[in-house]
């Protein structure tokens, strides 16, 4: 795992000291809120509905056990004993006090973490495939590139005042788990003539104008990647609109100028700046790569299958079915720990649970943890023979929900329970849908399903790319929930289609229930997933399920 360089340490220490002084000056009245607000946002500190919120970056979603324990300590000591993991591989603390934030930032710096560039018009936390470095299907670990990008973009003098925020996601696998087509830049590792490089996708994004990213270059060799990215961001920096916040993201720049125009400008810029890089970036990348060397996997001589393990309770079997993914090393598995126990708040983990996860990672997982954009925790390297013990340990921490990829594995943004921008709540809707389907015992019958909920048009909950998306809005003074269908966050990313008028807070769960009970009738057989059935049949039959009155009236 990447270890901070001396430069990193000094930079972070300086920023903590600066912020400590800024908070002191705010509290003694020498800074006004107008002066202070941009400073606190630069350090990830928002003011939400009921309290401040501190957003801490988890670069490319990677944590070690020491960092996880520190997050638990922070949650307990300065917050209310829990943290909220987000779709951008950040953790948010919902209740810090202003005067405690400098100490919290120091505690983060102690374990090589920070909250810088988690806000503002900068390059934000670089996200990556949460199975990076472990997945059986990946070409190579994308995290060294993500770390290179983090170093290049952190405090980059030219990119501190971009037209708007800028989000980059990286994957090393053709099975896109990083939603690269919904980012300002998405990078997909590919190979050409034996050479490693990336497909560069630009102009994706969700929010009020959702767009699927377009391929800017099908192949940029690894050696050229950083100058190429620099060319993209500086082209955007010049060309991006600053007159209208809603038209400022690169998705609009691309849309308005056309991908060809962007491509020409990027290539001209690239030709100009490439020489300036002079290979220093590649030397740096080599150093970084060494720090991401895979752990020393224990070769297990007997091909022990977890299936032959003694602790074969039905609960364990069910968990194996849903929460385990293929690892690149024989004898190993990737474990997804669900933070979506029905009724729980999606993405929340208590301090005790964080410590349990740290402990399990240390004992059974080569000390590695990942946070997924789906708001779950990943143990990327677990020996299959250890799975029964890992399951037991997770169970003791109330973390053994066997529902990865099923309907109760819902992405939900904080919504109006916390977020100052929200137009409706999202957490209670997620809780009710999950508990309802648990009660119906239909979750496994319904099978693979991505349900995603946002509490406003900003789409932090990725509702546009949910197989079923729910968007919370206000209508005539009450909460109203709009359903979109057919979205997809995978390699063939797609924006969902609005199904029709919104549902009231007490109608949304029954509507989802009708929709899915109806799907069970509509599908060809058990193997046809909700998304596949939708693609085969189109919107009409699903719309009829959602709005039975309309059909009767017609």
């Amino acid at each position, binding site marked *: 795992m990447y270890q901070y360089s001396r430069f990193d340490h000094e930079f972070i220490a300086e920023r903590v000291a600066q912020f400590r002084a800024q908070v002191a000056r*705010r*509290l*003694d*009245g020498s800074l*006004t*809120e107008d002066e202070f607000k941009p400073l606190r946002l630069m350090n990830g500190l928002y*003011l*939400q*509905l*009921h*309290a*401040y919120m501190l957003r801490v970056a988890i670069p490319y979603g990677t944590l070690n056990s020491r960092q996880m324990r520190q997050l638990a300590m922070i949650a307990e000591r300065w917050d*209310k004993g829990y943290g909220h993991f987000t779709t951008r591989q950040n953790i948010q603390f*919902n*209740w810090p*006090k*202003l*005067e405690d934030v400098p100490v919290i930032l120091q505690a983060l710096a102690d374990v090589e973490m920070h909250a810088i560039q988690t806000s503002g018009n900068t390059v934000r936390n670089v996200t990556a495939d949460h199975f990076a470095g472990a997945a059986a299907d990946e070409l190579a670990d994308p995290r060294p590139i993500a770390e290179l990008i983090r170093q290049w973009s952190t405090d980059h003098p030219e990119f501190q005042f971009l037209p708007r925020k800028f989000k980059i996601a990286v994957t090393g696998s053709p099975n896109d788990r990083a939603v690269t087509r919904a980012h300002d830049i998405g990078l997909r590792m590919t190979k050409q003539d034996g050479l490693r490089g990336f497909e560069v996708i630009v102009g994706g994004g969700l929010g009020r104008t959702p767009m699927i990213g377009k391929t800017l270059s099908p192949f940029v060799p690894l050696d050229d990647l950083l100058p190429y990215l620099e060319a993209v961001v500086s082209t955007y920096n010049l060309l991006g609109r600053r007159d209208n916040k809603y038209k400022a993201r690169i998705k609009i720049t691309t849309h308005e100028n056309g991908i060809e125009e962007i491509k020409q400008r990027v290539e001209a810029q690239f030709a100009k700046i490439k020489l300036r890089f002079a290979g220093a970036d590649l030397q740096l990348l080599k150093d970084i790569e060494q720090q991401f060397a895979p752990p020393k996997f224990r070769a297990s001589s007997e091909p022990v299958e977890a299936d032959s393990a003694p602790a074969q309770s039905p609960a364990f079997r069910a968990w194996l079915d849903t929460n385990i993914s293929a690892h690149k090393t024989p004898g190993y598995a990737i474990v997804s720990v669900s933070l979506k126990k029905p009724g729980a*708040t999606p993405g*929340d983990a208590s301090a005790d649970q964080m410590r349990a996860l740290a402990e399990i990672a240390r004992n059974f997982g080569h000390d590695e943890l990942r946070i997924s954009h789906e708001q779950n925790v990943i143990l990327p390297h677990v020996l299959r023979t250890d799975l029964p013990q890992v399951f037991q340990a997770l169970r003791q921490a109330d973390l053994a929900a066997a529902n990865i990829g099923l309907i109760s594995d819902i992405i939900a943004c904080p919504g*109006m*329970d*916390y977020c100052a921008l*929200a137009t409706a*709540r999202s*957490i*209670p809707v997620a*809780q009710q849908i999950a508990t309802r389907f648990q009660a119906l015992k239909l979750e496994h019958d319904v099978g693979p399903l991505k349900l995603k909920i946002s509490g406003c048009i900003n789409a932090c909950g990725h509702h546009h790319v949910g197989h079923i998306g729910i968007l919370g809005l*206000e209508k005539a*003074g*009450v*909460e109203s929930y709009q359903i979109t269908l057919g979205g997809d966050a995978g390699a063939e990313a797609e924006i969902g289609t609005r199904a029709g008028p919104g549902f009231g807070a007490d109608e949304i769960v029954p509507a989802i229930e009708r929709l899915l009970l109806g799907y069970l009738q509509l599908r060809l057989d058990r193997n046809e997933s909700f998304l596949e059935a939708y693609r085969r049949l189109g919107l009409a039959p699903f719309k009829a399920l959602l709005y039975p009155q309309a059909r009767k009236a017609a």
Partner: protein
Amino acid sequence: MSVTAISKVVTANDLRSGEVLYLRFPHSWTPELARASVIKDNDLAKASLAFAQGQPNAVVGAYLSDVIDKSDGPKASHFRERFRSTGPSNYRHGKQEL
């Protein structure tokens, strides 16, 4: 049922904790909406807001919020303000801990 007038309170967040606060005449802040002073006069509303904005070392982001004036104190008229006056629905945190 009697007609309830639309009335206003001044609300803001506490500078130190971020907690939702309400102005209580003459010069104090209360975390309880029920104890907030209800303002029914436009000039008084303006003056009260100006007073709140003149306390940058105590509160942040002051604004006027519509309430329904009930006998047991003001109630939020919009659901967002209702959530602000109670706290999140997933945990008994914030004001619900009191």
